[in-house]
């Protein structure tokens, strides 16, 4: 079977690649484009470790075909920081020790950024439900939720300036 | 003389059911050698399968662990963890 040519935008860069028809976006990111920040924890959309933002919406990249990225705008964990400046969510994850092994972290960072883009002032409950599609087995979520709420506060203060 | 206690299972396998002994030893290494001399095979069992509690403190793989004249010594299953 011949490969499919795809033109897309990933982390603000125009990207072209060839992929197999059955290849997931996650496999394309990891195996073809060497963007290994998105992780595979389940391959079935249950763990959220592969979360990316596609045209403003969070998606499990393991559930989307590489071919479906044609013409879309994709943000992966590698595109969350601006140059060497971390996004507030990333900074707060570090300050709150909101990661232990760090494997689920990229998915949480992407999902949390998308949450705060949509809702700058989430309640604890809203944050917990938004992040319920991301599994973490190490932290018990406590410090993750605190980090996200703290990042929201910082971003609101920055926006008010 | 230090007082040594082993579990029932180990006693059934190696000592004919005897569970408590007074053993002349000032280190764990000497204790193993002394018990193995009395009950052949027990030494290897202790080395590979057991931890030792000397006066309540647990040692694993520690020949040099000191044993006092009045020490209470328990041989217990080895401990790992997650």
């Amino acid at each position, binding site marked *: 079977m011949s490969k499919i040519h795809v033109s897309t935008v990933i982390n603000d860069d125009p990207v072209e690649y060839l992929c197999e028809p*059955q290849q997931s976006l996650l496999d394309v990111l*990891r*195996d073809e484009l060497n963007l290994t920040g998105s*992780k*595979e*924890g*389940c*391959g079935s959309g249950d*763990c959220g470790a592969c979360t990316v933002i596609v045209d403003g919406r969070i998606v499990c990249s393991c559930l989307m075909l590489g071919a479906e990225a044609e013409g879309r705008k994709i943000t*992966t*964990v590698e595109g*969350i920081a601006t140059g060497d400046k971390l996004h507030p969510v*990333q900074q707060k*994850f570090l*300050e*709150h*020790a909101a990661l*232990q*092994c*760090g*494997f689920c*972290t*990229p998915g949480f960072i992407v999902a949390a950024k998308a949450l705060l883009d949509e809702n700058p002032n989430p309640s*604890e*409950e809203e944050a*917990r*439900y938004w*992040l*319920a*599609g*991301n599994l973490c*087995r190490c*932290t*018990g*979520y*406590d*410090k993750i939720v*605190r980090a996200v709420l703290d990042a929201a506060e910082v971003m609101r203060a920055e926006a008010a300036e | 003389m230090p007082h040594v206690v082993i*579990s029932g*299972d180990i006693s*059934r*396998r190696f000592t004919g059911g005897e569970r408590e002994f007074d053993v002349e030893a000032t280190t764990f290494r000497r204790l193993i050698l002394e018990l193995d001399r009395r009950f052949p095979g027990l030494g290897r069992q202790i080395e*590979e*399968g057991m931890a030792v*509690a000397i*006066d*309540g*403190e*647990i*040692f*694993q*793989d*520690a020949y040099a*662990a000191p044993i006092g004249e009045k020490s209470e010594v*328990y041989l*217990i299953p*080895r401990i*790992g*963890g*997650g």
Partner: protein
Amino acid sequence: MTFIGKDLKVVGTRPIRPDGVDKVTGRANFGADMTVPGMIWGKIKRSPHAHARILRIDAEKALRLPGVKAVVTAADFPNIAAEEAFAGEAIMDFRDLSRNCMARDKALYDGHAVAAVAASTPAIAEAALELIDVEYEVLPFVIDVEKAMAADAPLLHGELFTQGIEPKPTAPSNIAKRINFTKGDIEKGFREADVVIERRYTTRPVHQGYIEPHACVATVAADGQCSIWSSSQGHFMVRQYCAHLLGIDIANIRAAAAEIGGGFGGKTLIYVEPVALALAKKSGHSVKIVMTREEVFRGTGPAAGSVIEVKLGAKKDGRLTAAEVTLKYQAGAFPGSPVGPGCMCALAMYDVPNANVTGYDVVCNRPKVAAYRAPGAPNASWGVESCLDELALALGLDPLSLREKNAAKDGVKAVHGPTWQNIGYAETLAAAKAHPHWRAPLGAGQGRGIASGFWFNIGGESTASVHVNEDGTVVVATGSPDIGGSRVSMAMMVAEVLGVAVERVRPIVADTSSIGYTFLTGGSRVTFATGMAATEAASRVVDELKKRAAVIWEISPEAVEWRDGMAYPAGQNAGAFEPLPLAEIAFRSARTGGPISAEAAINAQGPGAGFGTHICDVEVDKETGAVKILRYTAIQDVGRAIHPAYVEGQLQGGVTQGVGWALNEEYIYDKDGRLENPGFLDYRIPVASDLPMIDAVLVEVPNPRHPFGVRGVGEVPIIPPTAAVANAIYRAAGVRLRDLPMSPPKVLAAIDEEKG
């Protein structure tokens, strides 16, 4: 050398971990993130049968598929003899380990590896698996622990005779071992009791549930030198086991620690590494194997399922007079469940004058169990801590007071023998009693439960080296994979000893050829044992720095003091010279004797027992049976928290795993012995919306054996939650759940039965 009781500048603070930025930006390299030139992909074919004889494996069709480079089966591995060793986390047999990695003669569970293929792409490897033809003779199987113990049960191993009973049995059995601990006179103890409670509690196997599937890349050069990159709890363990299973000299394997995406004990064994090595050797290519989530569930872990029978006797005032506990643990396909530690932990927290604890290690047609956080203890404590609650209710006593009355203290003789010393169980109970949570009001339909947990913790072998760089910055290298932030703790302890800022100390995890042997990351040992080695190495560096300052000043090294990162002239020379900062001494190191570095290689002893007490509030939905955790407080004696945030994280994470064990998680088998829920959709681990914040309360009773007073902390927090939740459910809904998980259908059934 001790820092206990001293004023500390770094230890006890919360600096940002040095590996953190890589982890929040996606740059950290985990097991599956490695690519090497010329690499091909390995996949494993697994048995669809719970128990079957392998009659024939025909790989011819697979090998003809373009892109396929090699197929291996058990015939490609040495058929090693039975050899028991305490190599990793439990006594195990390398013959069993080999057969668990690749089935020989028989497949013993659904998901057991029977063959593997390597091909140029993952898709070709996947297609080739289908072309490997395996002929099986399907055999009767047994899943349930008590059915496996029955005299007429299908036997997994014809050569397995129960250890620990006399006379030695003449017939093989699925019971690998019986162990027993006794204290006092159990019959007398029950005769003295005013109240006796006898109950039976059960659990299902649960998976460690690390989010990162097992992954590795292996290379075998033509001269026999091998390299392995893998995600494990111990790259020295990987090296040792692979060498043993494949007959390779240890010096010919260089194993590197990938960042590890969780383990919880489940990565203290090997699964894919020897298979990748065998495929690499046969194909001449580097081979990468990454498990799918389904493979993780079907082929690795889990923790033992179990039956726990508990009988407790007490006086009217609550004083325990006797306790009898029987533990039946599933080992999975090969012997080696954690029933030994289970037996020791069952009653360890209590001062019981008369006791009898018996454990059975039972094989059955499930994956071989692997360590899972405090292996063996959560099962035993689920039973004992629930039964204690039932006893408290029968006596009309407060469950916290009942625990206080019977709590083990220094000088108390444990049921498994030793006399306790330097333990902090009573302190955790006192902290629970004093915590506002214990007295907070509850609403209708809500209930509060309490339960405690104990784990030994371990020490063991660790190597650490500390190097002073030319500019006075410092590197600390250890052999301990960092699974939860241990690198920052290493840097903090070294910074404290040297008197420098933690940012001046960079910690790394060195590969097996770059640092001395280090036992794996498990048993809550790293901050204790490897931290002890790092502290020792840093202290030797301080000695060296003092010598170098003495050379510069032309005085005796004994006349030099080290404080706050500087050498000071002391004694009669006090004030004679300007203090010399570390950077200054480092800059001149060539002139004073060469590079400044030190290594410490130790076998750490005296890890310090760990005790914890948890308080849990729940609300039970009487219409659906759903249990909501409203509030949770975990109190633990941690000795000394080096980085309190990561210590709290251990408590919060352990609690959450325990809550999953309590409410949702279980293996479900179909009538043919196949696992029905090998994915995170049907094997439901707790998610963010299932939980409230978890209050982690750190009690610090220093461990005198550690220079900073550290005790292991990672294991204890998973022990109390199951009983704490059950005890809370009883008070919320008036129903006693004795079978885990306490999923909504079971809770609802219990409520309906209670209504009559």
